[in-house]
Protein backbone atom coordinates (compact mmCIF):
# COMPACT_ATOMS: atom_id res chain seq x y z
CA UNK A 1 0.00 0.00 0.00
CA UNK A 2 3.04 2.22 0.31
CA UNK A 3 2.77 3.40 -3.28
CA UNK A 4 -0.84 4.44 -2.81
CA UNK A 5 -2.00 7.94 -1.97
CA UNK A 6 -5.37 9.15 -0.81
CA UNK A 7 -6.96 11.30 -3.46
CA UNK A 8 -10.34 12.68 -4.30
CA UNK A 9 -11.83 11.19 -7.44
CA UNK A 10 -11.73 14.57 -9.13
CA UNK A 11 -8.04 15.01 -8.32
CA UNK A 12 -7.26 11.48 -9.50
CA UNK A 13 -8.82 12.32 -12.87
CA UNK A 14 -6.72 15.47 -13.16
CA UNK A 15 -3.45 13.79 -12.25
CA UNK A 16 -4.19 10.80 -14.50
CA UNK A 17 -4.82 13.17 -17.40
CA UNK A 18 -1.37 14.64 -16.88
CA UNK A 19 0.09 11.14 -16.73
CA UNK A 20 -1.64 10.41 -20.04
CA UNK A 21 0.19 13.35 -21.60
CA UNK A 22 -2.61 15.89 -21.51
CA UNK A 23 -1.09 19.37 -21.31
CA UNK A 24 -4.16 21.41 -22.18
CA UNK A 25 -7.19 21.80 -19.95
CA UNK A 26 -10.08 24.21 -20.38
CA UNK A 27 -12.93 24.43 -17.90
CA UNK A 28 -15.50 26.49 -16.12
CA UNK A 29 -16.30 26.11 -12.41
CA UNK A 30 -19.33 24.04 -11.45
CA UNK A 31 -20.02 21.85 -8.41
CA UNK A 32 -19.24 18.98 -7.88
CA UNK A 33 -16.27 18.82 -10.25
CA UNK A 34 -14.43 22.06 -9.56
CA UNK A 35 -11.47 20.27 -7.92
CA UNK A 36 -10.43 19.16 -11.41
CA UNK A 37 -10.04 22.76 -12.56
CA UNK A 38 -8.36 23.77 -9.30
CA UNK A 39 -5.90 20.89 -9.58
CA UNK A 40 -5.09 21.72 -13.20
CA UNK A 41 -4.68 25.41 -12.35
CA UNK A 42 -2.03 24.43 -9.83
CA UNK A 43 -0.23 21.74 -11.82
CA UNK A 44 -0.28 22.81 -15.45
CA UNK A 45 1.92 25.92 -15.13
CA UNK A 46 4.55 23.82 -13.35
CA UNK A 47 4.84 21.30 -16.18
CA UNK A 48 4.66 23.66 -19.12
CA UNK A 49 1.01 22.93 -19.70
CA UNK A 50 -1.95 25.18 -20.33
CA UNK A 51 -4.78 25.74 -17.86
CA UNK A 52 -7.36 28.25 -18.96
CA UNK A 53 -10.60 29.14 -17.21
CA UNK A 54 -12.89 29.72 -20.16
CA UNK A 55 -15.70 32.27 -20.22
CA UNK A 56 -18.27 29.49 -20.55
CA UNK A 57 -18.58 25.76 -21.02
CA UNK A 58 -19.27 26.49 -24.68
CA UNK A 59 -15.97 28.32 -25.04
CA UNK A 60 -14.15 25.58 -23.11
CA UNK A 61 -15.32 22.78 -25.40
CA UNK A 62 -14.41 24.86 -28.44
CA UNK A 63 -10.93 25.47 -27.06
CA UNK A 64 -10.76 21.69 -26.73
CA UNK A 65 -11.83 21.48 -30.38
CA UNK A 66 -8.97 23.82 -31.29
CA UNK A 67 -6.25 21.92 -29.41
CA UNK A 68 -7.57 18.56 -30.59
CA UNK A 69 -7.38 19.87 -34.17
CA UNK A 70 -3.64 20.31 -33.63
CA UNK A 71 -3.33 16.66 -32.62
CA UNK A 72 -2.65 17.03 -28.92
CA UNK A 73 -4.36 15.34 -26.00
CA UNK A 74 -6.81 17.75 -24.41
CA UNK A 75 -9.67 17.63 -21.97
CA UNK A 76 -12.44 19.56 -20.30
CA UNK A 77 -14.65 18.73 -17.36
CA UNK A 78 -18.01 19.84 -16.07
CA UNK A 79 -21.16 18.69 -14.34
CA UNK A 80 -24.59 18.05 -15.81
CA UNK A 81 -25.88 21.59 -16.66
CA UNK A 82 -22.45 22.45 -18.02
CA UNK A 83 -22.37 19.31 -20.15
CA UNK A 84 -25.61 20.41 -21.80
CA UNK A 85 -23.81 23.59 -22.82
CA UNK A 86 -20.96 21.54 -24.20
CA UNK A 87 -23.40 19.53 -26.30
CA UNK A 88 -22.81 21.67 -29.36
CA UNK A 89 -19.08 21.08 -29.17
CA UNK A 90 -19.54 17.35 -28.62
CA UNK A 91 -21.48 17.12 -31.86
CA UNK A 92 -18.85 19.12 -33.77
CA UNK A 93 -16.04 16.99 -32.33
CA UNK A 94 -17.91 13.92 -33.58
CA UNK A 95 -18.58 15.48 -36.97
CA UNK A 96 -14.93 16.40 -37.42
CA UNK A 97 -13.70 13.04 -36.03
CA UNK A 98 -11.64 14.70 -33.33
CA UNK A 99 -10.44 12.89 -30.19
CA UNK A 100 -11.07 14.48 -26.80
CA UNK A 101 -11.74 13.55 -23.21
CA UNK A 102 -14.76 15.08 -21.50
CA UNK A 103 -15.53 14.51 -17.82
CA UNK A 104 -19.08 14.67 -16.49
CA UNK A 105 -19.30 14.52 -12.70
CA UNK A 106 -23.07 14.28 -12.65
CA UNK A 107 -25.49 16.10 -10.37
CA UNK A 108 -29.27 15.99 -10.16
CA UNK A 109 -31.38 17.55 -12.90
CA UNK A 110 -33.19 18.67 -14.99
CA UNK A 111 -32.50 22.39 -15.12
CA UNK A 112 -30.25 23.76 -12.45
CA UNK A 113 -31.34 20.69 -10.48
CA UNK A 114 -29.19 20.23 -7.42
CA UNK A 115 -25.58 19.56 -6.60
CA UNK A 116 -25.89 16.09 -5.09
CA UNK A 117 -24.86 12.93 -6.98
CA UNK A 118 -26.92 11.66 -9.87
CA UNK A 119 -26.77 9.36 -12.88
CA UNK A 120 -29.54 11.04 -14.80
CA UNK A 121 -27.34 12.06 -17.74
CA UNK A 122 -27.17 8.43 -18.90
CA UNK A 123 -29.39 9.02 -21.93
CA UNK A 124 -27.51 12.17 -22.87
CA UNK A 125 -24.13 10.45 -22.63
CA UNK A 126 -24.90 7.09 -24.22
CA UNK A 127 -27.30 8.08 -26.95
CA UNK A 128 -25.11 10.78 -28.44
CA UNK A 129 -25.33 13.89 -26.31
CA UNK A 130 -26.34 16.38 -28.99
CA UNK A 131 -27.66 16.65 -32.55
CA UNK A 132 -26.77 14.24 -35.30
CA UNK A 133 -25.81 10.58 -35.69
CA UNK A 134 -22.96 9.93 -33.29
CA UNK A 135 -21.78 8.23 -30.16
CA UNK A 136 -19.18 8.84 -27.53
CA UNK A 137 -17.26 6.14 -25.70
CA UNK A 138 -18.72 6.36 -22.20
CA UNK A 139 -16.69 5.09 -19.25
CA UNK A 140 -18.23 4.69 -15.80
CA UNK A 141 -15.72 4.46 -12.94
CA UNK A 142 -16.78 2.95 -9.62
CA UNK A 143 -13.69 3.79 -7.57
CA UNK A 144 -11.08 6.49 -7.35
CA UNK A 145 -8.59 4.03 -8.84
CA UNK A 146 -10.88 3.62 -11.84
CA UNK A 147 -11.33 7.38 -12.08
CA UNK A 148 -7.58 7.50 -12.74
CA UNK A 149 -7.26 4.40 -14.92
CA UNK A 150 -10.28 5.14 -17.10
CA UNK A 151 -9.02 8.69 -17.65
CA UNK A 152 -5.85 7.30 -19.20
CA UNK A 153 -7.87 4.70 -21.09
CA UNK A 154 -10.28 7.39 -22.23
CA UNK A 155 -7.48 9.35 -23.91
CA UNK A 156 -6.15 6.19 -25.58
CA UNK A 157 -9.54 5.13 -26.93
CA UNK A 158 -10.28 8.67 -28.09
CA UNK A 159 -7.05 8.78 -30.10
CA UNK A 160 -7.48 5.25 -31.42
CA UNK A 161 -10.98 5.81 -32.74
CA UNK A 162 -10.82 9.59 -33.34
CA UNK A 163 -13.80 10.38 -31.14
CA UNK A 164 -14.77 11.76 -27.76
CA UNK A 165 -14.45 9.64 -24.67
CA UNK A 166 -16.60 10.69 -21.75
CA UNK A 167 -16.01 9.76 -18.13
CA UNK A 168 -19.52 9.54 -16.67
CA UNK A 169 -18.95 9.87 -12.95
CA UNK A 170 -21.14 11.37 -10.25
CA UNK A 171 -20.73 13.68 -7.27
CA UNK A 172 -19.84 10.81 -4.93
CA UNK A 173 -17.08 9.51 -7.18
CA UNK A 174 -15.73 13.02 -7.64
CA UNK A 175 -15.75 13.96 -3.96
CA UNK A 176 -14.72 10.72 -2.26
CA UNK A 177 -11.15 9.85 -1.38
CA UNK A 178 -9.70 6.37 -1.68
CA UNK A 179 -6.19 5.04 -1.94
CA UNK A 180 -5.04 5.22 -5.53
CA UNK A 181 -1.95 4.00 -7.31
CA UNK A 182 -0.86 6.34 -10.07
CA UNK A 183 1.51 3.81 -11.55
CA UNK A 184 -0.66 3.56 -14.66
CA UNK A 185 0.81 2.38 -17.96
CA UNK A 186 0.20 4.71 -20.90
CA UNK A 187 0.13 3.51 -24.51
CA UNK A 188 2.30 5.41 -26.95
CA UNK A 189 0.38 8.19 -28.59
CA UNK A 190 -0.82 7.63 -32.11
CA UNK A 191 0.39 9.48 -35.22
CA UNK A 192 -2.14 12.08 -36.33
CA UNK A 193 -1.37 12.99 -39.94
CA UNK A 194 -4.74 14.75 -40.18
CA UNK A 195 -3.84 17.39 -37.58
CA UNK A 196 -3.53 21.07 -38.45
CA UNK A 197 0.02 21.87 -37.44
CA UNK A 198 0.91 24.15 -40.36
CA UNK A 199 1.67 22.80 -43.83
CA UNK A 200 5.36 23.82 -43.55
CA UNK A 201 4.81 24.28 -47.31
CA UNK A 202 5.45 20.54 -47.60
CA UNK A 203 1.98 19.07 -47.88
CA UNK A 204 -1.50 19.95 -49.05
CA UNK A 205 -3.47 21.76 -46.40
CA UNK A 206 -5.34 19.76 -43.77
CA UNK A 207 -8.92 20.74 -43.07
CA UNK A 208 -10.79 20.00 -39.84
CA UNK A 209 -14.43 20.18 -40.74
CA UNK A 210 -17.88 18.82 -39.97
CA UNK A 211 -19.72 20.45 -42.90
CA UNK A 212 -20.80 18.18 -45.76
CA UNK A 213 -23.35 19.92 -47.93
CA UNK A 214 -23.79 17.00 -50.31
CA UNK A 215 -26.11 14.52 -48.62
CA UNK A 216 -24.55 11.50 -50.33
CA UNK A 217 -21.19 12.45 -48.86
CA UNK A 218 -22.57 13.17 -45.39
CA UNK A 219 -24.38 9.84 -45.52
CA UNK A 220 -21.17 8.07 -46.39
CA UNK A 221 -19.20 9.72 -43.59
CA UNK A 222 -21.92 8.66 -41.16
CA UNK A 223 -21.86 5.08 -42.43
CA UNK A 224 -18.07 5.02 -42.18
CA UNK A 225 -18.25 6.36 -38.64
CA UNK A 226 -20.79 3.74 -37.63
CA UNK A 227 -18.59 1.03 -39.10
CA UNK A 228 -15.93 2.23 -36.67
CA UNK A 229 -18.52 2.10 -33.90
CA UNK A 230 -19.12 -1.59 -34.77
CA UNK A 231 -15.41 -2.28 -34.24
CA UNK A 232 -15.63 -0.54 -30.88
CA UNK A 233 -18.64 -2.64 -29.92
CA UNK A 234 -16.65 -5.77 -30.78
CA UNK A 235 -13.43 -4.80 -29.03
CA UNK A 236 -13.97 -2.31 -26.29
CA UNK A 237 -16.82 -3.52 -24.08
CA UNK A 238 -15.73 -3.51 -20.44
CA UNK A 239 -17.65 -4.79 -17.45
CA UNK A 240 -17.20 -6.49 -14.11
CA UNK A 241 -18.94 -9.72 -13.08
CA UNK A 242 -19.70 -10.09 -9.39
CA UNK A 243 -20.93 -13.48 -8.12
CA UNK A 244 -22.62 -14.20 -11.44
CA UNK A 245 -21.71 -17.93 -11.78
CA UNK A 246 -24.95 -19.11 -10.18
CA UNK A 247 -26.87 -15.84 -10.01
CA UNK A 248 -30.64 -16.02 -10.38
CA UNK A 249 -31.06 -12.35 -9.66
CA UNK A 250 -28.79 -10.07 -11.62
CA UNK A 251 -28.26 -6.48 -10.62
CA UNK A 252 -27.02 -4.16 -13.30
CA UNK A 253 -25.50 -0.99 -11.89
CA UNK A 254 -22.60 1.34 -12.54
CA UNK A 255 -20.61 3.84 -10.52
CA UNK A 256 -21.80 4.55 -7.00
CA UNK A 257 -24.96 2.47 -7.57
CA UNK A 258 -22.76 -0.60 -8.16
CA UNK A 259 -20.93 -0.04 -4.90
CA UNK A 260 -24.15 0.25 -2.94
CA UNK A 261 -25.44 -2.85 -4.74
CA UNK A 262 -22.38 -4.87 -3.77
CA UNK A 263 -23.21 -4.38 -0.09
CA UNK A 264 -26.77 -5.48 -0.76
CA UNK A 265 -25.68 -8.54 -2.74
CA UNK A 266 -23.37 -9.60 0.09
CA UNK A 267 -26.28 -9.37 2.53
CA UNK A 268 -28.57 -11.28 0.14
CA UNK A 269 -25.98 -14.04 -0.21
CA UNK A 270 -25.89 -14.36 3.61
CA UNK A 271 -29.62 -15.01 3.39
CA UNK A 272 -29.10 -17.68 0.76
CA UNK A 273 -30.36 -15.61 -2.16
CA UNK A 274 -28.36 -16.16 -5.33
CA UNK A 275 -27.78 -12.58 -6.35
CA UNK A 276 -25.00 -11.24 -8.54
CA UNK A 277 -24.12 -8.18 -10.55
CA UNK A 278 -22.97 -7.13 -13.96
CA UNK A 279 -21.32 -3.74 -13.62
CA UNK A 280 -20.93 -2.02 -16.99
CA UNK A 281 -17.64 -0.12 -17.10
CA UNK A 282 -18.35 1.01 -20.65
CA UNK A 283 -21.90 2.35 -20.85
CA UNK A 284 -21.33 2.82 -24.54
CA UNK A 285 -20.57 0.31 -25.88
CA UNK A 286 -23.02 -1.37 -23.50
CA UNK A 287 -22.28 -4.97 -22.41
CA UNK A 288 -25.41 -6.19 -24.19
CA UNK A 289 -24.02 -9.63 -25.12
CA UNK A 290 -22.98 -10.30 -21.53
CA UNK A 291 -26.42 -9.35 -20.25
CA UNK A 292 -28.12 -11.41 -22.94
CA UNK A 293 -26.02 -14.39 -21.87
CA UNK A 294 -26.86 -13.83 -18.20
CA UNK A 295 -30.54 -13.74 -19.16
CA UNK A 296 -30.30 -17.41 -20.13
CA UNK A 297 -29.95 -18.23 -16.40
CA UNK A 298 -31.07 -15.27 -14.33
CA UNK A 299 -34.79 -14.87 -13.70
CA UNK A 300 -34.81 -11.22 -12.75
CA UNK A 301 -32.67 -8.24 -13.62
CA UNK A 302 -32.69 -5.22 -11.34
CA UNK A 303 -31.44 -1.93 -12.70
CA UNK A 304 -30.12 0.12 -9.80
CA UNK A 305 -29.85 3.72 -10.87
CA UNK A 306 -29.64 7.27 -9.54
CA UNK A 307 -32.25 8.39 -12.08
CA UNK A 308 -35.86 7.78 -13.00
CA UNK A 309 -34.69 4.69 -14.90
CA UNK A 310 -32.60 5.25 -18.00
CA UNK A 311 -30.12 2.38 -18.28
CA UNK A 312 -33.05 0.02 -17.69
CA UNK A 313 -34.04 0.56 -21.34
CA UNK A 314 -30.71 -0.83 -22.53
CA UNK A 315 -31.02 -3.75 -20.12
CA UNK A 316 -34.49 -4.54 -21.47
CA UNK A 317 -33.18 -4.47 -25.03
CA UNK A 318 -30.37 -6.84 -24.10
CA UNK A 319 -32.58 -9.19 -22.05
CA UNK A 320 -35.07 -9.17 -24.92
CA UNK A 321 -38.01 -10.50 -22.92
CA UNK A 322 -36.18 -13.52 -21.51
CA UNK A 323 -36.40 -12.32 -17.90
CA UNK A 324 -38.09 -9.73 -15.73
CA UNK A 325 -36.40 -6.36 -15.57
CA UNK A 326 -37.22 -4.13 -12.62
CA UNK A 327 -36.02 -0.77 -11.40
CA UNK A 328 -34.57 0.12 -8.02
CA UNK A 329 -33.83 3.82 -8.00
CA UNK A 330 -33.53 7.16 -6.26
CA UNK A 331 -33.27 10.45 -8.06
CA UNK A 332 -32.72 14.18 -7.59
CA UNK A 333 -29.45 13.71 -5.74
CA UNK A 334 -30.59 10.87 -3.48
CA UNK A 335 -28.70 7.58 -3.42
CA UNK A 336 -30.38 4.17 -3.00
CA UNK A 337 -29.39 2.57 0.30
CA UNK A 338 -28.09 -1.00 0.51
CA UNK A 339 -31.31 -1.80 2.41
CA UNK A 340 -33.43 -0.54 -0.47
CA UNK A 341 -31.48 -2.64 -2.95
CA UNK A 342 -31.65 -5.66 -0.64
CA UNK A 343 -35.42 -5.23 -0.42
CA UNK A 344 -35.60 -5.20 -4.21
CA UNK A 345 -33.52 -8.38 -4.35
CA UNK A 346 -35.71 -10.06 -1.74
CA UNK A 347 -38.86 -9.04 -3.58
CA UNK A 348 -37.42 -10.54 -6.75
CA UNK A 349 -36.43 -13.72 -4.92
CA UNK A 350 -39.91 -14.12 -3.51
CA UNK A 351 -41.48 -13.66 -6.91
CA UNK A 352 -38.94 -16.05 -8.47
CA UNK A 353 -39.84 -18.67 -5.83
CA UNK A 354 -43.47 -18.63 -6.89
CA UNK A 355 -42.62 -19.55 -10.47
Amino acid at each position, binding site marked *: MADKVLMKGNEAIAEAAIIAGCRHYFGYPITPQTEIAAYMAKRMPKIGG*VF*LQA*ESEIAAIN*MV*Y*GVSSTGKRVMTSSSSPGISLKGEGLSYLAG*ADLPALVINVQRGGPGLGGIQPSQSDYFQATKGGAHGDFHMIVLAPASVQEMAELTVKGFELADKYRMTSMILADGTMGQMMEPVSLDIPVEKSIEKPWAVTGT*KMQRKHN*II*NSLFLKPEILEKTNYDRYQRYETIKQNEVRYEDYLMEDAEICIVAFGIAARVSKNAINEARKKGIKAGMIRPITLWPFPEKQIAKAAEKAKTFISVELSMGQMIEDIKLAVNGKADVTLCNRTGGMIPSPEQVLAAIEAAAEKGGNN
Partner: protein
Amino acid sequence: MVVFDKPHALSDVPFHYCPGCTHGIIHRLVAEVIDELGIEGRTIGIAPVGCSVMAYDYFNCDMIEAAHGRAPAVATGVKRSDPENIVFTYQGDGDLASIGMAETVHSAARNENITIIFINNAIYGMTGGQMAPTSLPGQVTQTSPYGRDVNLCGYPIKVCEMLSQLDGPEYIERVAVNNVKNIKNAKKAIKKAFENQVNGKGFSFVEVISSCPTNWGLTPEKALKWIDEKMIPYYPLGVYKDRSAQK
Protein backbone atom coordinates in the same frame (compact mmCIF):
# COMPACT_ATOMS: atom_id res chain seq x y z
CA MET B 1 5.82 43.49 -66.99
CA VAL B 2 3.43 42.92 -64.10
CA VAL B 3 1.33 39.80 -64.53
CA PHE B 4 -1.77 39.60 -62.39
CA ASP B 5 -1.60 36.39 -60.39
CA LYS B 6 -3.30 34.74 -57.51
CA PRO B 7 -1.60 34.83 -54.11
CA HIS B 8 -0.08 31.47 -53.24
CA ALA B 9 -2.09 31.33 -50.03
CA LEU B 10 -5.31 31.14 -52.05
CA SER B 11 -6.25 27.73 -53.44
CA ASP B 12 -7.59 27.05 -56.93
CA VAL B 13 -11.09 26.29 -55.68
CA PRO B 14 -13.50 28.81 -57.29
CA PHE B 15 -15.26 31.12 -54.81
CA HIS B 16 -18.99 30.56 -54.40
CA TYR B 17 -19.68 34.20 -53.52
CA CYS B 18 -22.41 36.24 -55.26
CA PRO B 19 -21.47 38.73 -57.97
CA GLY B 20 -20.41 42.02 -56.41
CA CYS B 21 -19.79 40.54 -52.98
CA THR B 22 -16.60 41.86 -51.41
CA HIS B 23 -15.65 38.65 -49.57
CA GLY B 24 -13.44 37.80 -52.54
CA ILE B 25 -11.47 41.04 -52.16
CA ILE B 26 -10.96 40.47 -48.45
CA HIS B 27 -9.91 36.83 -48.99
CA ARG B 28 -7.35 38.09 -51.46
CA LEU B 29 -6.04 40.74 -49.07
CA VAL B 30 -5.60 38.16 -46.32
CA ALA B 31 -3.83 35.79 -48.73
CA GLU B 32 -1.53 38.54 -50.01
CA VAL B 33 -0.53 39.39 -46.46
CA ILE B 34 0.15 35.72 -45.68
CA ASP B 35 2.34 35.55 -48.79
CA GLU B 36 4.17 38.77 -48.03
CA LEU B 37 4.93 37.72 -44.46
CA GLY B 38 5.98 34.24 -45.64
CA ILE B 39 3.85 32.55 -42.98
CA GLU B 40 1.61 30.22 -45.00
CA GLY B 41 3.39 27.10 -43.76
CA ARG B 42 2.70 27.95 -40.14
CA THR B 43 -0.68 29.62 -40.48
CA ILE B 44 -3.92 28.03 -39.34
CA GLY B 45 -7.16 29.71 -40.32
CA ILE B 46 -10.52 29.32 -38.63
CA ALA B 47 -13.60 29.64 -40.83
CA PRO B 48 -16.96 30.72 -39.40
CA VAL B 49 -20.55 29.80 -40.05
CA GLY B 50 -22.08 32.21 -42.53
CA CYS B 51 -21.34 33.13 -46.12
CA SER B 52 -17.63 32.48 -45.67
CA VAL B 53 -18.24 29.05 -44.15
CA MET B 54 -16.32 27.43 -46.98
CA ALA B 55 -13.27 29.66 -46.56
CA TYR B 56 -11.52 26.47 -45.43
CA ASP B 57 -11.45 25.42 -49.09
CA TYR B 58 -10.15 28.75 -50.34
CA PHE B 59 -6.97 29.15 -48.31
CA ASN B 60 -3.95 26.93 -48.85
CA CYS B 61 -2.87 27.00 -45.23
CA ASP B 62 -4.25 24.49 -42.70
CA MET B 63 -7.87 25.32 -41.92
CA ILE B 64 -10.52 24.53 -39.33
CA GLU B 65 -14.25 24.97 -39.66
CA ALA B 66 -15.64 26.13 -36.30
CA ALA B 67 -19.13 26.06 -34.84
CA HIS B 68 -21.17 29.24 -35.24
CA GLY B 69 -19.54 32.05 -33.28
CA ARG B 70 -16.92 29.88 -31.62
CA ALA B 71 -13.95 30.68 -33.85
CA PRO B 72 -12.17 32.84 -31.22
CA ALA B 73 -12.40 29.97 -28.70
CA VAL B 74 -11.15 27.46 -31.28
CA ALA B 75 -8.37 29.89 -32.21
CA THR B 76 -7.46 30.18 -28.53
CA GLY B 77 -7.03 26.42 -28.36
CA VAL B 78 -4.95 26.29 -31.54
CA LYS B 79 -2.74 29.20 -30.49
CA ARG B 80 -2.22 27.84 -26.98
CA SER B 81 -1.33 24.46 -28.46
CA ASP B 82 1.56 25.97 -30.44
CA PRO B 83 2.20 29.69 -29.97
CA GLU B 84 4.67 29.61 -32.89
CA ASN B 85 1.82 29.11 -35.32
CA ILE B 86 -0.08 32.07 -36.76
CA VAL B 87 -3.79 31.78 -36.12
CA PHE B 88 -6.51 33.86 -37.70
CA THR B 89 -10.28 33.78 -37.67
CA TYR B 90 -12.46 35.09 -40.48
CA GLN B 91 -15.95 35.84 -39.19
CA GLY B 92 -19.12 37.58 -40.26
CA ASP B 93 -21.34 39.88 -38.22
CA GLY B 94 -23.83 37.25 -37.09
CA ASP B 95 -21.07 34.83 -36.17
CA LEU B 96 -18.87 37.32 -34.32
CA ALA B 97 -21.22 39.96 -32.95
CA SER B 98 -24.33 37.91 -32.19
CA ILE B 99 -23.95 34.24 -31.33
CA GLY B 100 -20.20 34.50 -30.69
CA MET B 101 -20.11 37.78 -28.78
CA ALA B 102 -18.91 36.15 -25.55
CA GLU B 103 -16.05 34.36 -27.31
CA THR B 104 -15.11 37.59 -29.11
CA VAL B 105 -15.09 39.77 -26.01
CA HIS B 106 -13.24 37.28 -23.85
CA SER B 107 -10.54 36.49 -26.39
CA ALA B 108 -10.02 40.26 -26.65
CA ALA B 109 -9.97 40.64 -22.86
CA ARG B 110 -7.35 37.88 -22.64
CA ASN B 111 -5.32 39.63 -25.35
CA GLU B 112 -5.06 36.27 -27.14
CA ASN B 113 -2.26 36.61 -29.65
CA ILE B 114 -4.55 35.96 -32.62
CA THR B 115 -5.80 37.92 -35.61
CA ILE B 116 -9.51 38.40 -36.24
CA ILE B 117 -10.88 39.56 -39.58
CA PHE B 118 -14.45 40.66 -38.97
CA ILE B 119 -16.68 41.11 -41.99
CA ASN B 120 -19.52 43.54 -41.29
CA ASN B 121 -22.10 43.72 -44.08
CA ALA B 122 -25.05 44.50 -41.82
CA ILE B 123 -27.01 41.42 -42.82
CA TYR B 124 -27.14 37.63 -42.65
CA GLY B 125 -26.20 36.52 -46.14
CA MET B 126 -26.11 32.74 -46.10
CA THR B 127 -29.56 32.27 -44.61
CA GLY B 128 -31.03 34.76 -47.05
CA GLY B 129 -30.99 38.29 -45.70
CA GLN B 130 -32.09 38.42 -42.09
CA MET B 131 -31.37 41.17 -39.59
CA ALA B 132 -27.82 41.19 -38.23
CA PRO B 133 -26.62 42.67 -34.92
CA THR B 134 -25.04 45.33 -37.14
CA SER B 135 -28.08 46.03 -39.36
CA LEU B 136 -28.71 49.78 -39.43
CA PRO B 137 -31.71 51.44 -37.76
CA GLY B 138 -34.56 51.31 -40.23
CA GLN B 139 -32.81 48.75 -42.45
CA VAL B 140 -35.26 46.44 -44.18
CA THR B 141 -34.37 42.77 -43.95
CA GLN B 142 -36.32 39.53 -44.09
CA THR B 143 -36.75 39.57 -40.30
CA SER B 144 -37.18 43.33 -40.03
CA PRO B 145 -39.59 43.74 -42.97
CA TYR B 146 -40.78 47.14 -41.72
CA GLY B 147 -37.27 48.35 -41.10
CA ARG B 148 -35.15 47.73 -37.99
CA ASP B 149 -37.17 49.21 -35.14
CA VAL B 150 -34.67 50.08 -32.44
CA ASN B 151 -37.40 50.14 -29.82
CA LEU B 152 -38.27 46.58 -30.65
CA CYS B 153 -34.93 44.98 -31.39
CA GLY B 154 -32.33 47.37 -30.12
CA TYR B 155 -29.49 49.24 -31.72
CA PRO B 156 -26.70 48.01 -33.95
CA ILE B 157 -23.55 46.95 -32.13
CA LYS B 158 -20.42 48.96 -32.87
CA VAL B 159 -17.90 46.23 -32.20
CA CYS B 160 -14.67 48.24 -32.62
CA GLU B 161 -15.91 50.97 -30.29
CA MET B 162 -16.96 48.37 -27.73
CA LEU B 163 -13.81 46.24 -27.80
CA SER B 164 -11.57 49.29 -27.64
CA GLN B 165 -12.92 49.95 -24.14
CA LEU B 166 -11.17 46.78 -22.94
CA ASP B 167 -7.66 46.86 -21.51
CA GLY B 168 -6.78 43.60 -23.27
CA PRO B 169 -6.60 44.16 -27.01
CA GLU B 170 -3.49 45.31 -28.85
CA TYR B 171 -4.98 46.69 -32.02
CA ILE B 172 -8.47 47.47 -33.30
CA GLU B 173 -9.21 49.15 -36.62
CA ARG B 174 -12.23 49.52 -38.89
CA VAL B 175 -11.72 49.64 -42.65
CA ALA B 176 -13.86 49.28 -45.79
CA VAL B 177 -13.39 47.76 -49.22
CA ASN B 178 -15.75 49.86 -51.33
CA ASN B 179 -13.10 51.79 -53.30
CA VAL B 180 -9.44 51.54 -54.21
CA LYS B 181 -8.25 53.88 -51.50
CA ASN B 182 -10.19 52.03 -48.81
CA ILE B 183 -9.00 48.67 -50.12
CA LYS B 184 -5.38 49.84 -49.84
CA ASN B 185 -6.01 50.95 -46.26
CA ALA B 186 -7.71 47.65 -45.52
CA LYS B 187 -4.67 45.78 -46.76
CA LYS B 188 -2.41 47.84 -44.49
CA ALA B 189 -4.63 47.15 -41.49
CA ILE B 190 -4.83 43.42 -42.19
CA LYS B 191 -1.07 43.29 -42.63
CA LYS B 192 -0.55 45.07 -39.34
CA ALA B 193 -2.95 42.69 -37.62
CA PHE B 194 -0.88 39.70 -38.79
CA GLU B 195 2.46 41.39 -38.12
CA ASN B 196 1.35 42.12 -34.57
CA GLN B 197 0.78 38.42 -34.04
CA VAL B 198 4.10 37.47 -35.61
CA ASN B 199 5.76 39.93 -33.23
CA GLY B 200 3.87 38.55 -30.25
CA LYS B 201 1.95 41.74 -29.59
CA GLY B 202 -1.48 40.25 -29.03
CA PHE B 203 -5.12 40.50 -30.01
CA SER B 204 -5.45 42.28 -33.32
CA PHE B 205 -8.84 42.94 -34.82
CA VAL B 206 -9.82 44.38 -38.18
CA GLU B 207 -13.46 45.12 -38.95
CA VAL B 208 -14.06 45.30 -42.67
CA ILE B 209 -17.19 47.08 -43.87
CA SER B 210 -18.34 44.88 -46.72
CA SER B 211 -21.21 44.78 -49.18
CA CYS B 212 -24.03 42.34 -49.78
CA PRO B 213 -25.71 43.43 -53.05
CA THR B 214 -27.89 40.34 -53.19
CA ASN B 215 -29.52 40.75 -49.79
CA TRP B 216 -29.43 44.52 -49.77
CA GLY B 217 -31.38 44.36 -53.06
CA LEU B 218 -28.93 46.66 -54.83
CA THR B 219 -26.65 46.41 -57.83
CA PRO B 220 -23.00 45.85 -56.94
CA GLU B 221 -22.21 49.45 -57.83
CA LYS B 222 -25.06 50.89 -55.77
CA ALA B 223 -24.09 48.61 -52.90
CA LEU B 224 -20.64 50.19 -52.81
CA LYS B 225 -22.29 53.61 -52.72
CA TRP B 226 -24.58 52.44 -49.91
CA ILE B 227 -21.44 51.68 -47.88
CA ASP B 228 -20.32 55.29 -48.31
CA GLU B 229 -23.73 56.80 -47.70
CA LYS B 230 -25.17 54.62 -44.94
CA MET B 231 -22.63 52.26 -43.42
CA ILE B 232 -19.56 54.43 -42.92
CA PRO B 233 -21.48 57.32 -41.29
CA TYR B 234 -22.76 54.82 -38.70
CA TYR B 235 -19.51 52.85 -38.52
CA PRO B 236 -16.71 55.42 -38.86
CA LEU B 237 -13.47 54.07 -40.26
CA GLY B 238 -10.23 54.41 -38.38
CA VAL B 239 -7.95 53.06 -35.67
CA TYR B 240 -9.84 52.52 -32.42
CA LYS B 241 -6.97 51.14 -30.43
CA ASP B 242 -3.28 50.69 -31.08
CA ARG B 243 -1.27 50.00 -27.99
CA SER B 244 2.10 50.23 -29.76
CA ALA B 245 1.23 53.65 -31.16
CA GLN B 246 0.19 54.88 -27.71
CA LYS B 247 3.63 54.25 -26.26
